[in-house]
């Protein structure tokens, strides 16, 4: 059953790692985000710490957008989207494959960006920081589960990148708002009792978005 999804995932990762330049470019780009924000808002360290969680997510989300655009541009290139519609498999399986490849690539970017973030904003590493892992996972999955299906929608237009931003940003804003709140709690070390219920809520919406997209993906492939 998962054969299709795994094949697609393997194929996507293989292609992604083959174009190492684009990974490097994306990493430099997120570096730039930190630099530019630093110059445009010349603020004290204290304020910087307050906006740091938001900044971190801006960098994450930009790298995520990049991955999403790339992912379906590859499929459109040689008519592969039509090839997917012709495959003797469930459209949901194709969605799962694409979802995992986009998510893994985004998480990889996050792993590359986070150390720089720590250095630039001189954050103290502590054991409590491990709480960031579920936060990043939940936020990223929310972003990519919606992003994957909307990217498959946007790829049918000529202005793919703009349209994906227009569709995805407003829809994913709740997830991002919550993720920023949660990240802020962990980074400031003020993990209140609201932390876990909120994290659970993000997780619940991840499940909703994923299931909905899984069910609707067949309609996107159909003409």
């Amino acid at each position, binding site marked *: 059953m998962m*054969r*299709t999804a795994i*094949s697609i995932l*393997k*194929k996507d990762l*293989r*292609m992604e790692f*083959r*174009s190492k330049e684009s990974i490097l470019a994306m990493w430099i780009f997120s570096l730039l985000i930190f630099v530019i924000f630093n110059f445009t808002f010349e603020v004290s360290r204290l304020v910087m710490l307050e906006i740091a969680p938001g900044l971190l997510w801006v960098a994450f989300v930009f790298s995520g957008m990049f991955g999403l655009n790339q992912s379906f541009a*590859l499929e459109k*290139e*040689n*008519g*592969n989207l*039509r*090839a997917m*519609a*012709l*495959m*003797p*498999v*469930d459209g949901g399986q194709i969605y799962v494959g694409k979802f995992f490849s986009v998510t893994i690539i985004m998480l990889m970017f996050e792993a590359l960006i986070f150390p720089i973030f720590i250095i630039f904003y001189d954050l103290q590493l502590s054991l409590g920081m491990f709480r960031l892992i579920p936060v990043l996972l939940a936020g990223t999955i929310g972003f990519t589960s919606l992003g994957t299906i909307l990217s498959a929608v946007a790829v049918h237009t000529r202005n793919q990148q703009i349209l994906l931003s227009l569709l995805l940003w407003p829809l994913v804003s709740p997830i991002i708002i919550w993720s920023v709140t949660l990240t802020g709690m962990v980074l400031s070390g003020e993990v209140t009792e609201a932390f876990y219920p909120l994290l659970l809520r993000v997780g619940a919406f991840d499940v909703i978005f994923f299931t909905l997209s899984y069910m609707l993906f067949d309609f996107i*492939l*159909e*003409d």
Partner: protein
Amino acid sequence: MSVPALEVLAISKDFGRIIALRGVSFSVQSGEFVSILGRNGAGKTTLLNIISGISRPSEGEVKLFGTDPSDRENKAKLAVISHEMFLYGNLTAIENLEYYSRIYNIPNAKQRVETVLNDVELTHRRFDLVATYSRGMTQRLTIARALLHEPSLLLLDEPFTGLDQHAIGMLITLLKKQKEMGRTILLTTHDLHTATELSDRYVVISKHKIVKDGLIADTNPDAIREKFFSADTGGIDL
């Protein structure tokens, strides 16, 4: 008589302001080679999309091997060759073929991949990225990819467009071989010459309707040319 490979029963595709097909009916027996002739925009591609289960007719019904074209078993029996490549430039020939053989769940995949690569004479380039291939080579690989899962029904949508002479010759040879093996083939083209050379039957579509359905053997190609093709446009003119 056995179930026909393909039955198209009075289908129309008429959505919103778009009219693509109107009351098109025909059937194709197993092992037949049928050419669909028609001008660009006559509705040939829409017809193939409906037959391959990607698109739905707004009226009428299509039966592939007696069932709905969007059935998974039917999709596994079907291959489409068009001007689109259905290949990833950033993968090698062998990686492309291996990917599709996993998707189509092909037994003995390794051997099968080698066979089709050999058929299209690309074995020596199998470890090269498809992006480095010439156009003709890419087209040959496209054909190999389509034949990978040994489809019982081949749908060819203007497959000769943009091919070089070598690739055209190879495709014709391969198609003849497929026909000998008893595969059903449906070809859309505006090239009368290849249509008469390869097919048993021809169907002419004009302005979203079928205007002629006849056996190639019963017809003098010149008569078809005279009747449906005008010399000056080189296309079908009704």
